[in-house]
């Protein structure tokens, strides 16, 4: 902090002084002030601060030799809070990690993101990406986002335990409830779910039940504020959620999503609806026993949609070197870079490029690719399809619902009121 005052005062003068946010800004913007000397250097601002993904991205960036590229890694909380400041500063990072969804669109509508439409046509790096991904990356008819990997959600279970309990993978809601009953009768908790310090996990079931009952279009519209949370459609969702409550391990209310993996791994719980990132949280000897199934179909007339949270990059509209930024994006989106990143990060993420050879990926990942490929529609996750602020209203409503399912009507009314406040502002 000793060297901070100079750059800090410059920073404050630059954007007119922003008080509280500025306090953190000094530290973060201080780090990229080095790139101001030469616009020939590109800056990649990354929020991937976990060891494996960070090492993977470092390796990938080292492989880019055309322009000298500086990688700044910043913890996600700070990154998220500082993102507007990064994009709005006179000398922004050229390329930033982020995810597709409403937040990116919001920034695009304010003109902060570089138009990368040309990367999506002709010989562009994203030209072979699926139309669903293109739609996710589009704002106001222009592409502003470069997706490089995504993952799937599913109901994860241990193959050996399903065998031991004598249950089959369910495909319909009734079969699913029967499986829950059987597992419960064997003395295990049918469903584990860590909603303690990671309350957002409770939105997994909400999203999926809504997708299965009301469909993807309704779900998106609901999160955009076009339908009320206390309407009959959401009540139907909560009726189904209520059927699950007796099967959900009550201890999960104290757990984080990682903690809640332990009962599954140690055979005390049967199933876990969670993202593919679960593979990083189970012990190595359990990974091979881990399998997943698609969330059972409730209404066969509703087109099947799946959650596919998509990660990638966007570039700042104020980049000093837009051509260089696009070139870096093209490199990051290229098949070899995607493959290298996914393998080094030890993630179960799927590549967005169709040219990546996925035959070496694990059977679990192959299955994930197949499921998403067959889906009629893709959504991301509650917070990505709406905003982190709306996510908090969901966290409040759903964790309260887990505690007091009898109050469901009051909870939904309250949810609608707080959602209206968020969406109205």
């Amino acid at each position, binding site marked *: 902090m000793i060297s*901070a*005052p100079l750059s*800090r*005062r410059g920073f*404050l003068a630059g954007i*007119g*002084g*922003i*008080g*509280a*946010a*500025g*306090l*953190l800004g*000094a530290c973060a913007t201080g780090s990229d002030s080095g790139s101001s000397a030469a616009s020939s250097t590109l800056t990649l601002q990354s929020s991937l601060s976990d060891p494996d993904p960070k090492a993977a991205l470092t390796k990938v960036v080292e492989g880019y030799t055309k322009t000298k590229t500086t990688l700044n890694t910043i913890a996600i*909380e700070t990154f*998220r*809070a500082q993102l*507007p*400041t990064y*994009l*709005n500063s006179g000398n922004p990072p050229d390329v930033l990690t982020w995810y597709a969804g409403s937040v990116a669109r919001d*920034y695009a509508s*304010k003109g*902060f993101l570089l138009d990368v439409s040309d990367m999506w046509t002709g010989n562009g790096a994203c030209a072979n990406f699926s139309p669903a991904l293109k739609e996710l990356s589009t704002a106001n008819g222009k592409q502003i986002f470069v997706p490089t990997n995504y993952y799937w959600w599913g109901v994860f279970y241990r193959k050996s335990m399903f065998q031991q309990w004598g249950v089959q993978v369910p495909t319909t809601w009734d079969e699913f409830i029967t499986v829950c009953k059987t597992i419960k009768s064997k003395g295990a908790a049918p469903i584990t779910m860590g909603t*303690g*310090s990671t*309350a957002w996990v409770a939105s997994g079931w909400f999203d999926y039940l809504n997708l299965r009952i009301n469909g993807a279009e309704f779900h998106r519209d609901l999160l955009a504020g076009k339908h009320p949370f206390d309407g009959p459609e959401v009540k139907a969702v909560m009726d189904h959620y209520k059927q699950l409550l007796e099967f959900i391990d*009550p*201890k999960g*209310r*104290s*757990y984080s999503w990682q*903690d809640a993996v332990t009962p599954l791994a140690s055979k005390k719980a049967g199933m876990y609806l969670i993202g593919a990132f679960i593979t990083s949280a189970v012990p190595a000897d359990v990974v091979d026993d881990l399998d997943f199934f698609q969330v059972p179909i409730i209404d066969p007339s509703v087109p099947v949609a799946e959650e596919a949270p998509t990660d990638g990059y966007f570039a700042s509209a104020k980049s000093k070197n837009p051509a260089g930024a696009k070139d870096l994006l093209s490199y990051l989106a290229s098949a070899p870079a995607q493959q290298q990143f996914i393998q080094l990060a030890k993630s179960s993420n799927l590549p967005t490029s169709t040219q990546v050879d996925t035959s070496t990926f694990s059977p679990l990942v192959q299955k994930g690719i197949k499921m998403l490929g067959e889906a009629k529609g893709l959504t991301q996750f509650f917070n990505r399809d709406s*905003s*982190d*602020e709306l996510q*908090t209203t969901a*966290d*409040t409503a759903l*964790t*309260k619902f887990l*505690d007091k399912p009898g109050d469901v009507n009051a909870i939904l009314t309250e949810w609608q009121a707080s959602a209206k406040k968020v969406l109205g*502002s």
Partner: protein
Amino acid sequence: MTAVAAPARRRSRLRAVPKVVWLFLLVPALVEVGMVFWPAVNSFYLSLTEWNGLGAAKPVGLANFRNLFSDDVFLGALKNNVVWAIGFGGLSVLGGLALAVALNRPRRGVGLYRSAIYLPMVFSLAVTGLFWRVQYQPDGTINTLLGAVGLDGWEKQWLANPDTALYAVLVAAVWRQVGYVMVLYLAGLKGTDPTLDDASAMDGASAWQRFRFVTWPQLRGVNTVVFAVTVIDSLRTFDIVWAMTQGGPYHSSELLSTYMFQQGFTFLNLGYASAIAVVIFALALVFIITYLIRATKEEAG
């Protein structure tokens, strides 16, 4: 204070200060103004605006403050802060004082006890929070102990239960603070005059009377320090709550500071968050002014 006679003498002394010293004073003063006062003033301005960090802030007058007082989460947080200030302040002062009195007399192993009680202070609040979170787990130490002594009925999901979450965090915070307060009081007790205690004992005063009427009045100076430290610590509490519950379940352990953080740095409602910050500042100011008035009065008396 001999302010009346001072001016003439002081001016000559001012001139005697070398210029380079002024320079050395000026630099920290500028840093202080630039890094503390200027952002603070800005947050007052921001509290009157609506701003998400992009573009220009939109002035909205007092709307943020009006919204605050119709915001159930804010009102809940305000109430929790009152509970917190009383619980945290009361328990850590009572506990710290009791421990200091008990461990004041030199006897074998007393140093070991003192260090053991002060030890939690070495951990950061975030680490304390993580440590206690493990104890509060459904199968954690606390529930296991309760079960072992036959109090199964008392077993709870301490941090996941809206009725207990705030108090569970409070216990963890007091556990850490109590050693600090104890050390302050131990220092205070060392400064008391032992002959007074002996004399009153000779006069037949009971242990309680000796403490209440002989020792306690001599601790006045320490008390004001402890009061200030405790009030400020309780108003700025953030990390331990964030590490243990993040204000949940459903805002039941929300404090003003955690709500401000969430509004400001998660949702980027910087205007609204600044309004909360202003409220925290006003509350702190009330306490600090009362404290200063009391302190100066005592000094004058």
